[in-house]
C-alpha cells in the first residue's frame, strides 16, 4: 500500500483541488473519486487526506460546510474558494510543465 508520503505533497493538493472544482464533496467522496478517476493507480491512504484538507482550509483555498448527505447524515463538504481556483490553475499549469518536461527527458533518451 502506498504511503501518503509517496505522493508529492503538492500533487495531493492538486488532486484535491481538482476533485472538488466541479462540485462540493465530503472527504470520503474525495478519496473515492481520486481512486476511481486514476483507475485505482493512485492509492491514497484515506485518512491522510484529512491533514491535507485542513491545511488547504487554513490557507483559505478551500472552504468547508456541514451539510446533509442524500442519506440524511451530516457531513463536511469542501468546496473551492476564489483563491483556491486561482491556485488550482497555477498548480495545474505547473504540473503540465513539469510532466511535459519529464516526458521529454524520458522519451528522448
Amino acid at each position, binding site marked *: 500500500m502506498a504511503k501518503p508520503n509517496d505522493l508529492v505533497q503538492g500533487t495531493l493538493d492538486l488532486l484535491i483541488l481538482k476533485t472538488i472544482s466541479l462540485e462540493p464533496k465530503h472527504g470520503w467522496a474525495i478519496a473515492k473519486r481520486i481512486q476511481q478517476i486514476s483507475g485505482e493507480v493512485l492509492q491514497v491512504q484515506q485518512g491522510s487526506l484529512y491533514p491535507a484538507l*485542513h491545511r488547504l482550509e487554513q490557507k483559505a483555498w478551500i472552504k468547508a460546510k456541514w451539510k446533509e448527505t442524500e442519506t440524511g447524515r451530516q457531513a463536511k463538504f469542501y468546496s473551492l474558494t476564489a483563491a483556491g481556483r486561482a491556485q488550482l490553475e497555477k498548480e495545474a499549469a505547473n504540473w503540465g510543465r513539469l510532466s511535459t518536461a519529464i516526458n521529454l527527458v524520458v522519451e528522448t533518451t
Partner: protein
Amino acid sequence: MVSARRVWVRLGTLFHRNRRAQRLDDEFQFHLDQQITENIAAGMSPEEARYAAMRSFGNPTVLNEETRDTWGWTRLEQFSQDFRYGLRVLRRSPGFSALAILSLALGIMAATAMYSVIYGVVLHPFPYRDVDSLMSIKVWSPDSSRYRLGYTVDQFLEIAERNVIFEGTIASTISDVVWRSGEQPLRLRGNVCTMNTFAVMGVPPLFGRVPTEADGAPGAPRVAVLGYKFWMRQFGGDPGVVGRAMLFNDTVRTVIGVMPPRFMWRGADVYLPIVFQRGEFLEGVHYVHVLGRLKPGVTETQAETDLRPIIADLKQREPAAFPAKWRVGLLSFKETFPSGIREVLWILFGAVGMLLLIACANVSNLLLTRSASRQREIAVRASLGATRGRLLRQLLTESALLSALAAVIGAALAFGALRAILAIVPPESIPDEAQVALNRPVLLFTLGVSFVTTLLFGLTPALHASRGQLVTALKESGRGIGAGFRRVSASGGLVVIEVAMSFVLVVGATLMVRTVLAIENENLGIRTDHVLTMRIPLSSQRYTDASRRSSFFEELLRRIELLPGIEAAAINTGMHPFFGGMETPVEIPGTAQTDARPVLIHEVSRDYTKVFGIALLEGRLFTDSEIAARSRLAIVNQGFVRRYFPDSEPLGRIVRVPRLSSESHLADDAFQIVGVVKDALNRGLTREIAPELYFPHTITGSGEFLAVLTNTDPAGWAKTVAEQVYAIDPSQPVTDVRSMSSRLNDWEYSGPRFSVVLLAIFASLGLTLAVVGVYGVVSNAVAQRTHEIGVRKALGAGSRDVLRLVFRFGARFILPGIGIGAAASVGAARILGSQLWGVSPHDPVALVSVVVMLLTVGFLACWVPARRAMRVDPVVALRYE
C-alpha cells in the same frame, strides 16, 4: 482579500478549537461509516467491514494529531498548557509563591513610586519651553555663600536693555494683590510681570490670549491673566471669565486669558502684566526677579563678559547696592527654583534601589531553593523525552507568570504608594508646577528587572537538567544532597547581600529617627501652645506712612486684648522660631567693633516677649508711652550681648542700625539698650541662635505678623480675631491664620518626618525580606540535611549540638552580611549626613543597636528551622536509607 479571509479562518480555528476538535472526530466517523456501508454492500460481514474500513483509513489518533497540527497555534496550545501548569505549580506551594510575588511587588512598588516622585519633582518639574535655556542673573561676593537674584526696577531695565545674551528678559514679583468683588476683599498671590513674560516662558494660554505689545501701548486698557488654580477655585472653570473686568489693587483690569494648570510661574493666582518704567514704585516690592532666555550657543563666559560692565555701571551709580567685591553669573532655572526635598528624594531613591535589589535577591534565592527540589521532576520529564527547549519554555512560562503577577500587584501598589508619598510631602517643598504621576518608563524598567531576575534564576533547573545529570538526579530521590552545595553557596551569597543592604537601610533609618527626635526634643526657647498666628499685610496705598500703619496695629491690639480669654497679643515683622524681619549688620558707636555679620531685627509691640514666653533677664521692656512716642530703645538677646558686649554692661549702650537710615530713610538710627532677654531659636530649628535686636514697631510700621496668646484652643479664635481686623478696616485682608503648632509642624517637623517615615518603611521592608532570605536558606539546608542530622543524633548528638550546627550555618550568612553592611553604612551615612542633625553620621549608639537588632532577628530566623532540626527523629530520618 485572500489574506483577510485567511486571517478570519485562522482566528476561527483559534477561538473554536474545542468545537473543531469535536467535529473532526465526527468527520472521521462519517468517513468510516461510509466505508463500512460500502464494504457491507460489497458483501463483507459487519465485523469484517469495520476492520477493512479502519485499515484503509489509517491510525485515527496519529491522523487526528497531524490534522490538528495543520491548524497551527501549536505553540500557543503548548503555552496555554505551560501556563496552566505554571499556575498549578504556584498554587501547590502557596507560601513560596506569595513570598516571591510579594517580594518582587514590593520592590517594584517602592522603586517605581519613588522614581516617579523624583521625575515629577526634581527632573522634570517645569512645563516651560526649553527650561534649560532660562537663566536667572546672580550677583555674589566671593566672601559669602549668599547671592542675590533680585534687582530694583531701574536695575532690571538697565540689564534688560543692555544685555545681548538673552532673547528675552522678563521681570516678575510675588506681591499681595487685593481683589475686591463682593463684601470681603480677597488677598491674592499676584505676579506683577513684564508684558513679554508669557512669550518668553513659551506656554500658550488655556483660554483667551496672553498679552501682546499692543497691551503695553500708552493708554491701552490694563489687562490681567488668571492662574489655573485660582480660576478653578473662584470661577469653577468658567471660560466666560475671559473678557470680564475685575478690580485688582483698586485698578480695573480686563481678564484676557487663563493659563493651563501647570503654568504656575511664581505660584501666582493672577498675573498683572505692566510696562516697567524707571523710577516706578511697585507696591510692597523692593526687588523684582530677573529671568532671561539665553540665545542659542551663548556660553557662561560670554554671559559673564556681557553682564559684568552692566552691573559695574549699576554699582557705580548705587555703591551700596552691591558688595565691594562682587561677581556676576547665571543660575539655571532648576537651581533658581529647586525643590526643598531634592536631596532627601535622591537619598530615598538610593534606599529604594537597595530595597529593589534585596527583593530581587530574595526572589532569586527562593527560586534557587525551589529549583533544588524540582531537580527530580525536571529529570523525569527529560527522561520521558521532553526536549531541552520544551523544558526551558515551560520554566520560562512559570517565571514569566510569577513576575507578571508581581508586576500587576506591584504596579497597583505603586499607584497607591505614590499617592501616600505625595500625601506626606512637606508643604511648599515641591515646585508649584510639578505634576507627579506614575512614570511609565520606570515602571517598565522595574518590571524588566523583576522579569530578568525571575528568568535568570527560574531557569537554573532546566540548565542543570541538560547537563547529563539525569541519572544522578533520578537516583538522588529528590533530596539532592550532592548537587545541593553549589546552589546553597550561590543563594548564600545572595543572602549575605540582602543582610548587608538591609543593615545599611536600617542604619540610615535609625540615624534619621535620632535626627527627628533631636529636632522634636529641642528646646525652642518659646512657648508654642495656645498661640494663634496670622499675617495682616497692610496695603501701602491705603496705609501710606509708619504712623498710620502702627496706629492700625495699636488699635487692633487694644481691641483683641479686651476680648475675654485672650491673654496677650503682639505684632512683629517676623516670628520666632522661623525668622526675624530684617537681617542687617549693626554698629556700636565708640567701639572699634567691625563685625559685619548680620543681626536679626524684631520690630515689636509691648507684649511680644509675653506672648512667646521669652524671659527678661536684665533691665526692662518697652512701655506703652515709649512705643507711642516711637522712642529709639532696644532690647537685645543673650547672643547679642555675647557678640558685642562680652566684657561690658549692655544696658544703656547705643546701637546703630545703618540700614534704617539708608533704606528706610530714618533720620535717627541709634537705639539705646534697655533690656536683655533670654535666647530663643530664631532661624529655624537647626541653625544656631543669631544675635537679635528688638525695637518698637511704631518706628517703621512694617510689622505684619500678629501673634495671640489664648487660654483655649487657638484655632477656635481665628474668626473672632479676624473680626477685630474687619471692625477697624472692612477691606483689610487677613491671611495665613494658623496655630503656632501647625506652623511648626509644616515648616520644621514635616520635612524630617517625611524622610524618616519613608526610610523607616523601606528599611523595615528590606529587613523583613532579608530575614525571609535567611530563613529560607537555613530551613532549606535543614530539610536537605535531615538525614545527616538523624545520623548525628543516632550517634549521640544532643539538641544543643544540633542547635549549634544550625546556628553556625546561619552565622555564615548573617555575620559577613553585618560586616559588609557596617562597612557600607559608613559611606552611606556620609551621604545621609546633610539630612542629619544632632547626631553624628557614625553615631555608635545607632550602629551598635542595629548590629544587635540584626543579630537578634537573624538568629530568630534560624531558630525556627533549628527547632525543626532538633525534633528530627533519628529513626524516621534513617528510614529513608
